[in-house]
């Protein structure tokens, strides 16, 4: 019972972060039809940016944990957005009219560049950040209990409001409308006066900022990271995006939560060594029955 409670909490927290990262894959796929394999590494960069922000801020004598968190979040989001835009501009936009494979290979190249650059400049060792908020809510008695740490609560709350904010942005603002119009018919959007290149850049910025939210929160929670964390987490988040239906924003969030829950329930009750096997097996079995994911629309070939 308590194990179940604990695994549900852990799964929700993990799932929320997958969802945050999955949003970037799904939005980019939706608008230009490519899988941005460098997205996981943008998430990795945000961990380092968190460490940099925390170091600089404490050097300046700032010690309020909440202020540190908020400033690191904003700092990481701003810089990763910029990096996202630059990646698109340099590595993907020149290949916009090339065949579909070219930007994919370019994305893998960017991913390798980012990993190797960080490894060389920051070192291959694990890096760490200090614990900013300690403590937990406990449920149960002395012997049997499950807990929700303040960090976990922070992750779920911030993830929820980030997703909500992004959803409102996409659903109700002129930029959101422009994104959806460009996604559906880029040429028509341009004919109507929408600067599609700028909209695409904005999508990269939004996706990167959401990955940064995940990166900052996870870094604060686990305390340690290295240059390679983007790979596995990126693949998982990508899986979440496909599971939910790639191209669908609510799908990415749902896929993230489901994947997180499945993974942590499996490791809690069956075997933690095989959790990745289970996660991907789940993906395969869902795709067999729903090839376009849980909330994805079936692809209709235009004649």
């Amino acid at each position, binding site marked *: 019972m308590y194990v179940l409670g604990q695994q549900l909490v852990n799964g929700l927290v993990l799932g929320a972060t997958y969802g945050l990262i999955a949003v970037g894959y799904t939005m980019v796929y939706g608008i230009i039809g490519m899988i941005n394999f460098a997205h996981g590494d943008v998430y990795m960069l945000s961990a380092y940016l968190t460490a940099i922000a925390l170091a600089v801020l404490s050097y300046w004598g700032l010690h309020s944990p909440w202020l540190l968190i908020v400033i690191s979040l904003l700092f990481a989001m701003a810089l990763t957005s910029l990096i996202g835009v630059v990646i698109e501009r340099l590595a993907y936009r020149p290949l916009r009219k090339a065949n579909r494979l070219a930007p994919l290979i370019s994305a893998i190249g960017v991913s390798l560049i980012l990993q190797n650059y960080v490894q060389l400049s920051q070192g291959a060792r694990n890096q760490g950040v200090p614990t900013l908020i300690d403590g937990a809510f406990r449920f149960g008695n002395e012997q049997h209990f499950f807990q929700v740490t303040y960090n976990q609560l922070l992750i779920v709350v911030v993830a929820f409001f980030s997703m909500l904010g992004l959803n409102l942005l996409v659903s109700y603002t002129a930029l959101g*409308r422009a994104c959806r119009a460009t996604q*559906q018919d880029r040429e028509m959007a341009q004919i*109507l*006066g929408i600067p*599609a290149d700028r909209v695409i850049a904005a999508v990269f910025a939004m996706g990167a900022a959401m990955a940064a939210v995940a990166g900052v929160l996870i870094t604060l929670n686990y305390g340690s990271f290295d240059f390679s964390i983007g790979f596995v987490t990126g693949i998982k988040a990508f899986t979440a995006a496909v599971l939910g239906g790639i191209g669908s924003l609510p799908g990415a969030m749902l896929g993230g939560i489901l994947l997180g829950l499945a993974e942590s329930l499996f490791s809690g009750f069956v075997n933690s060594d095989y959790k990745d096997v289970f996660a991907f097996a789940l993906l395969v079995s869902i795709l067999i029955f729903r090839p376009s994911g849980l909330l994805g629309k079936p692809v209709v070939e235009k004649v």
Partner: protein
Amino acid sequence: MTAQAASTQALLSIRDLRVSYGPTEVVHGISLDVFPGEIVSLIGSNGAGKTTLLRSLYGVPRAKSGSIIFAGEDLSQVPTHQVAKRGLSLVPEGRRIFSGMSVLENLKIGQTSRADPAGAEEDLEWIYQMFPRLKERSAQRAGTLSGGEQQMLAIGRSLMARPRLLLLDEPSLGLAPLVVRSIFETLRTVAAQGMTIFLVEQNAHQALRLAHRAYVLSTGRISLEGPGQELLKNPEVKAAYLGGH
């Protein structure tokens, strides 16, 4: 119209326009003018180059040679998304509404290139007045509209930009005759309020009846030009485009 041609400057003036898709030239040196307040139709059969001509105004594809002068400015190198800002608005072939978005959202997308964003509310009311169906269905997904309603939406979307020149590409395509008639009736109303219209059509009968002036395009060249009513009676036009009646 010759008096008008001499006294006013053309809003749109195309000279010796050549357009190709890859190695294939589709438009072989077209010249035409649209004057402010006019309804001009361009008729021609399938494959004559009508759509290509309209699309080249937006640079998709770019003209190979010749000039496109709109309100005194050469459009031939203007980026696609900036053409609308100059005051052109296209109702494209096949409507191309954003089917996943609501009717109202489609109309709002149309106002992107407005010179005066403040006037959008007023124009929305005007469009709703003209097409009450759109008002009734403003929250509905655009993809669920009937063909005729979608055409109205595409026209409304373009009007939301308050263009100086409304371009229409085959608004009658795939619609029932009754719906076509009502669409053309609306165009007449819009024109009566001072909108300049350049219409490209296969439905020669409706297009010529509506137009002040018209051009006949055959295989990439202008073969005839004159007042709409005159072309309606022209034996060549009758034989080729009006089914010989």
